[in-house]
Each structure stands twice: as C-alpha cells, then as structure tokens.
C-alpha cells in the first residue's frame, strides 16, 4: 500500500513536471532574427531595408500573425546591430541561432555580409531569406537553406541591355567604380552586351574615391561609343554628369544604374534623358499575389515612418518582399523546419508576385524572376520605359546634346 502510494506520488510529480515543462515550452510567437547596420558603409541601405521588414511586421501582426499548425502566432522580430562589420555578423547570427533561438532569419545588407551569415544559417539549419545578397557566387556554395528575394548581379543589366539593343545602340562604353556591386554588375553588363551583339568599346574601372572622370569620358567619346553605361554609386554619377556637361560630352544612350536616386534626379535638367535602374517604383503595379500592393505598401510606409529622412525605395521593397516570402514559406510548409521551408519556397516559385516583382528561384535559391526596371528621367520626371509590359512612357532616344536640353 505504501509502495502504491509512493508510485502514485512519483507519477503525479512526473506528470506535473512534464505538464509545466510543456506549458513552459508552448510556443508564444514566431521569432525572426535579422541584423541592421547602425553605422558603417551599409547603414543607410540597411536601415531602408529594415523599414521594409517593419512594414511587414506591422501588417502580419495586425492580422494576428503567421498561421502555423492551425493557429496564428504573432511575429517577434529579434533585431541586432551588425555595424556593417563582417565580424559582428558572424557573432550576431551565431547569437540569433544559438542564444536567441530564432525560428528563421532575414539576411543582412550587402553580399559580403550575407556571405558571412549564409554558412552560419546553413550549418545552424535555419531558413534565411536574402534581400540584398546580389552576388551570384553566394548561390554556388551549396547552401541548402538560403533563398534570394532580390535580383542577382548578373541579371540586373538584362532589361537595360535589351533596351539599348532595341534602340539601336551598337557601341557601348562601360565605366564603373571598383567596388563589389558596381564591378560585378559591370561584368554582367559586358557579358550581356556582347551576347546581344553590342560592341563594348571601353570597359574601365576607376578607384574608389576618384572624382575626376574627364579622361574616362573623353576615352569613351573617342572610342565612338553610342551608349555610356555606368554602374557606379550616385555620388560618382553626380560628378560624372557635371563633367559631361562641362566637357560637352554626351551620348545618344546614357545609362547610370543609380541615377533614379533623388540625389541624382535633383540635378534637374542635367539629369534628363538618363536611363537608370530600379526594382521598385510607385508607378509600377505588379499583379501582387502575396503581401501589400504598391499603393498599400507606400501608404503603410507613410503611416509608420512619417518622419523618415528618405522615401521608400527599392531596398525597402526588397526587404519587405523577403519577409513576405518567409511568411509564405512558413504557412505553405506549415513548419519551421529549414528544409521544408526551402521546399515550400521552391513550390511557390514562379507563382508568386510581390511588390518587388515575381519571385522565382532555382534549386540553389538563386533569384531568376525579378525583372529589373529601367527608368528614364523625362522633363524632370522619372518614367518607366522598360520592360514594355509596365512601361509608362516611350524612351527618348537619341538624347539631345547639352545645348539642346
């Protein structure tokens, strides 16, 4: 009798312990980890992307959260500062996985930092969506848990080179800043141009920090270029445009990747007729299947960030898109297992359109679907000129000389 009593007591204790343990482990939320850069060279872009994730967070939680196993769970964003530092990214993603025990990850800004975070996510068996890892090489490493929600570097020049070809550009001068993204995009542009039958008459990089482009511009002109193509950052483009005007150098087709930024369009007439790149524009209305439409996205941005120093840009949209992909993967897979999330993402690849474009990946997670958009500043306003299915204006070609602008 005493033995039975002790056994009963033991059983009760065990059951009680298990029960309280289970209660303690009962899921309260879905935890998503990410980093932003409070300082350093990636700060502005990273924070722009963070605002996109915040828009998603606000939207998803206003609807109760993410559906998992028949129940909605609020999303908890575990956000840390990486200071644009490779070492910090390594520590932070380690911390997010092993100490913060997040359920999934959103990648940091820039290919270099994503390259550090990716093996950590992969070895930690955490699904990660990348919104700013444009390096093609990232997806040749055999990572199994990473997917891209941004246009890869080799794909960025696709629309602009097709446009140049269709307009009749036959000789292209490509000039770029010696930094990772501009250099790889320039390489891709050269390859695509040559494939399209354009002759690349000049392919030249300059050192970071250079501001005197007179010689480069003269060389491009002397080479007979009918198209000038630069993948440099906006601060360099401003100097380039000014020096083009000072030296009375113009080209029938001028493409400057970052010329859609307000710092460049703010040059006014001098920036007219220049083609540029974006992956998001307020006038583009993709047939969104998941997440907010362009108008809803912009309205949410204005509501959540009324005092933001910058308007919503393509980085905001890309990061938002990456978060939507993550949500969709969880809900489709009905799981937080990295392999199942990757399989789910492959499953809805090609059938999902976000505010940033179509989501279509291959087995490696490499993004193939997002079409780069080509803009042209026309009479002080940016117009979409390609791809043709979303164009809002016809391209102005050839661009008039400086005296006629």
């Amino acid at each position, binding site marked *: 009798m005493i033995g039975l009593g002790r056994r009963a007591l033991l059983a009760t204790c065990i059951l009680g312990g298990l029960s309280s343990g289970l209660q303690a482990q009962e899921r309260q939320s879905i935890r998503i980890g990410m980093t932003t850069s409070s300082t350093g060279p990636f700060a502005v872009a990273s924070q722009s992307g963070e605002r996109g994730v915040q828009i998603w967070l606000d939207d998803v939680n206003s609807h109760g959260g993410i559906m998992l196993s028949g129940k909605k769970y609020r999303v908890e964003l575990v956000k840390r500062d990486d200071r644009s530092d490779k070492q910090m990214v390594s520590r932070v993603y380690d911390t997010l996985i092993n100490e913060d025990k997040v359920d999934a990850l959103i990648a940091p800004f820039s290919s*270099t930092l994503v390259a*550090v975070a990716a093996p950590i996510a992969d070895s930690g068996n955490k699904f990660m969506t990348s919104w700013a890892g444009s390096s093609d090489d990232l997806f040749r490493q055999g990572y199994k848990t990473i997917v891209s929600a941004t246009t890869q570097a080799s794909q960025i020049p696709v629309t602009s080179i097709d446009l140049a070809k269709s307009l009749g550009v036959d000789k292209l001068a490509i000039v770029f800043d010696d930094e990772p993204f501009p250099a790889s995009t320039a390489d891709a542009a050269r390859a695509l141009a040559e494939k399209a039958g354009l002759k690349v008459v000049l392919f030249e990089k300059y050192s970071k920090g250079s501001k005197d482009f007179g010689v480069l511009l003269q060389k491009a002109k002397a080479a007979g270029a009918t198209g000038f193509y630069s993948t440099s950052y906006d601060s360099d483009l401003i100097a380039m445009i000014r020096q083009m005007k000072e030296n009375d150098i113009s080209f029938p087709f001028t493409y400057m990747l970052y010329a859609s930024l307000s710092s460049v369009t703010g040059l006014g007439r001098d920036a007219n007729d220049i083609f540029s790149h974006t992956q998001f524009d307020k006038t583009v209305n993709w047939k969104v299947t998941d997440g907010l439409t362009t108008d809803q996205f912009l309205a949410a941005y204005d509501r959540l960030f009324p005092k933001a120093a910058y308007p919503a840009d393509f980085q905001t949209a890309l990061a938002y898109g990456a978060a939507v992909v993550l949500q969709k993967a969880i809900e489709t897979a009905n799981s937080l297992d990295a392999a199942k999330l990757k399989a789910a993402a492959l499953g809805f690849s090609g059938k999902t359109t976000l505010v940033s474009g179509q989501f279509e990946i291959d087995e490696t997670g490499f993004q193939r679907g997002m079409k780069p958009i080509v803009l042209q500043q026309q009479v002080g306003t940016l117009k979409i000129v390609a791809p043709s299915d979303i164009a809002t204006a016809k391209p102005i070609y050839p661009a008039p000389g400086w005296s006629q602008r």
Partner: protein
Amino acid sequence: MSVESSGRLQAMAWIGLLLIGIACFVAAPALGLSLAFWFYLALWITLASGLNIMSGFTGYLPFGYAAFYGIGAYAAAICVRKLGLNIAFGLAAAAVAGAVLSLIFARTLNLRGIYFSMVSLALAAICRILVANLPDWMAGGSFGITLGVGYRLGSYYALLVVMVATLLTVTWLARSRLGMALRAIRDDPDTAEVMGINVGRARLKAWMISAVIAALTGAIEAWYSNVVDADTAFDLLISTKAIIYAVAGGLGTVLGPVIGVIVMLFVDDMIWQRFPVLNVFLLGLVIVLLMMFLPRGILGTLLWHKPRLRRVLF
C-alpha cells in the same frame, strides 16, 4: 624574495593562467557558448599580442598592421579556392606571404616614430589597392573570394593553436636576449647600437614574427568567415582595434594585450546587448576615458602603482 623564486612564481602563475584560459577556450564550443564570440576573442588576443611584439617591445607602431592580416587572408583563400589546395597549405602559404611582405617592407624600419607609422599606413593602403586590382580569376574581383571550406570548428581550434603559440612566443621574447635587445632599441636605439646590439637584425626578427602572426590570423579568419574581400581584409580598423586593445591592456607586457582584449570585448558586448542604438557612441566614450585615465593601460597602470605585482604579473 630572490630573483629566481620570483621568476618561478611568475612562471607558475602564468602557466596556471594559460592552462585555465586554454581549458575555457577548448570547452566553450562543447558547453554551447557562442563560437563566434570565443573565436573573435582568441583572434584579437592573437592580433593584439602580435602587434605588441612590434609596438610594446620594439617601439614601432604599425598602423598598417592590417596589410599582413589581409595578405594572409588572400593567400589562404587563393590557395584553397583557386588552386584547390587543402586549408593547411593555405595557412602555410599565408605564413610565407606574411614573412615575404615583412621583408619587402623591412626598409621602413629605418624610419622612426610617427614617420614609420604613417608609411606603414600608406603601405597597407597600397596593398589593398594592389590586391583589389588583381585579375578576377585570381583574387575574385571586388566580390572577393568565398572559400567554401566549411568546418568552422576546425578553424576555431586552429586559431587556438596560433593564439597559444603567439602567447608563448611573447613570453619567450619577454625573457630572452632578443627581448632585452628589443626593449633597449625601444628605449634608445642609438645607445643600443653603441652597446653592440645589432639593431637592424633584432628589429627585423620582431617585425617578421609579428607579420607572420597577423598573416596566420587573417588566413584563419577567412576560413572561419568563409569570405574574404579587399575592403574587409585590409580594413584599417583591424590595425586600429589591435592597437586599442593592446594599449588598453598595457603595451610591452605579456598579459597586457590579453587583459585589454578581454576587458574591451566584454565591455563592447555588454554595451551592444543593452544599448542597441547608442552602442557605438558608448564604446567610443569608453575608449576615450580609458586612454585619458589609464594611459599605461590596465595592467601597465596596476604595475606602475603596485610594482610588487611584477612578481606574478608581467
């Protein structure tokens, strides 16, 4: 207490501390502690100690120390990724690259003080530009090289080996004739020469040892982080942080850089965890206050005020 017994006490204390430290580092991954934190703790202890050889012992402040770190990282990455060699070859190549670069830069040792520091800084910048302009098929262009080696734990233990070797090297240096010669050169190079010390040779030895340490560290970090690119491999913050940590602890002492790194990294981590917005500002403030109130560093100041502690700490 006699000199011999004082020396034995010092040695025992140091060996004891080293063994405890090694045990902590070895056990950290098994205990589920943050591998990244412990890896970078070991990395900065190694770098700060390596820099201490040139700066603390010899009196040369190499602002361009990152050049060796970067060249080591690239040597390893090129061997592994472009030549298809094992990471062990990559590390060996990194050490050789660091030694060769130190020989190429050896002429700068004829300069003194701020002139050496400035030229060293310029040479590091030149290294970065040269590497960044290597053909893409060799150095990966501006995106750099992704190593794809894996086995991060292996890189962690490799770094532990280098760290322990560095600390033992610094310990040997502190007690050796070479170390005495370096300190004499640091205090008064002209007098040291008159006294018969081969200034050039002694400096060169210290320079090469310091360079190889940095190169190996850069190579192992590339292995660990899986990616190397010119901007981050030759980042001047690498030199700056190594200097700050070494100075914070106490240049010219063996334990100083170790203490400096431990204190600064823990403070940095604590600030980063608790002040997500202001962490960089607060860290800068801590560094400024440290330099103002403890210019000899933590250990240096302690030994200045309590010379008796030299029996145990050094």
